[in-house]
């Protein structure tokens, strides 16, 4: 058969176009009567104070760092998992060692208190 990536590329293209259709159709026939009250931000009836794109809590950043480490490591694990059946036991043990080093990182972060939501 043909290259499956051509199919996936076309799929992505149409997959983006299909959700646009109802929005465009709705924009054609829906009423448009904007007014300042209607367009104000809904925050349970209280008027908005300041800008809303505020800075985020630093805790998210730390979790993002831990995530980044683990996500990159799991990408390394995929080739190992695919070829696992063809590998000798020694290579499997090496992979296990790799995971254990990874877990040591998690234990380190845990002991350092990075995993606490404060």
């Amino acid at each position, binding site marked *: 058969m*043909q290259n*499956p*990536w*051509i*199919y*996936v590329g*076309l*799929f*992505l293209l*149409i*997959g983006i176009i*299909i*959700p*646009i259709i*109802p*929005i465009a*159709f*709705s*924009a054609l*026939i*829906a*009423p*448009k*009567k*904007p007014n300042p009250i*209607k*367009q104000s*931000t*809904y*925050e*349970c009836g209280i008027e*908005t104070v300041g800008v*809303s*794109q*505020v800075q*985020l*809590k630093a805790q*998210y950043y730390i*979790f993002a760092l831990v*995530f980044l480490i683990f*996500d990159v490591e*799991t990408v390394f694990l*995929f080739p190992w*998992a*695919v070829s*696992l*059946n063809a*590998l000798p036991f020694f290579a*499997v043990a090496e*992979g*296990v060692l790799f*995971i*254990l080093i*990874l*877990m040591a990182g*998690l234990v380190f972060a*845990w002991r350092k208190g990075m*995993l*606490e*939501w404060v």
Partner: protein
Amino acid sequence: MNFLSDPIKVISTWLTSLLTGWGLSAGLTSVLLSLVGIVLMITAVMVLDIMLVWVERKVVARFQGRLGPNRVGPYGLFQPFPDIIKLIIKEDITPDGADKLVYNMAPIISLGSVIFLWAVVPIAARIYGADLNVALLYMVAAGSLGTLSIIMAGWASNNKYALLGAFRQVAAMISFEIPMVVALLIPTILTGSLSLQVITDKQSGGNWFFLLSPLGALLFLVSAIAELGRSPFDLNEGESEIVSGYHIEYTGMKFGLFYAGELLHAFTFGGFLSILFFGGWHGPAASTYPLLGVFYFVVKAMIGYWVIMWIKYTVPRIRIDHMLMFNWKFLTPLAFALLIVTAVTNSLLKGSSFYMPGMFLSNFLLGWITIEIMRFSSRKQRLAVKAPEPAVQH
């Protein structure tokens, strides 16, 4: 080769001969055929999505002791259509100070990211979109786009509740993606391939991976629920505290797309659960009659979807620190322990007659040890907390 045994091949052969008969080149013909297939597939998925609205409403009604939609058509089956008409003719309000481009792109990406997933789903024997050899990675990548849409919606809405919901979703997503990816490694180890076709074919004849790795299936289910942002992990919506979070400012069809995307996402993950651990479309006579395979796949996906709904409507929402603790201190270590156990058991017992019971037993033992450790640590925590002082009576 007849229509019942290979419908796609019959139709594509007929269309190819028709189009090349008109003088089109072979390359263009195959692209055109792909386009027809894609549009058919997406249309089928969208029709399914529309019916999921009815399923969701009916099931939540049953869980809450109500009747649910029962007026429009038999059992309220046509209820989604008036819903859609209502959503389309609603006014579309863009709040002041919203980032227009990002605000309008978010719902499109939300639904689009779920539709993307269906490019690699094996629906039945010889009925599938693309047979990618990295389908699992593609699935993780496309699934993460949904989270991107959530943070786009939250950031662009110029609303503090929406922003909070988006932050929470990102925290949940970046945490629960680790156990999910590790749970995806389990079928990869068992098959030695990332292709969803190969993973399904390895499970033919009732040889489900659920029997080899029940813990893996459980891990995938839990982390998928968190990834979906469904209760008990629906902190991104949290109706009672941040009034439905990231899509608070969306009205009309844009809200409808978020809603449709959420339902379809849940159903798709039910489908992935069935593909990865419950044999996908495999069932009696499914490989000779693909249409029967479609039926089996949809039934299995529906059961997965129903389990996700069951959890959603039974378990109350948990706090964000509990959620992250649950992930980093429980799910992630368990997932990696399971990965080690599966890899070692797999390479030790490969080819022996003790393979299947051995895999099951190793999973069972790991689960048991985990429960014992949890029991031990929770008892330690209980003892560490002082008993409350009895109220002094005067």
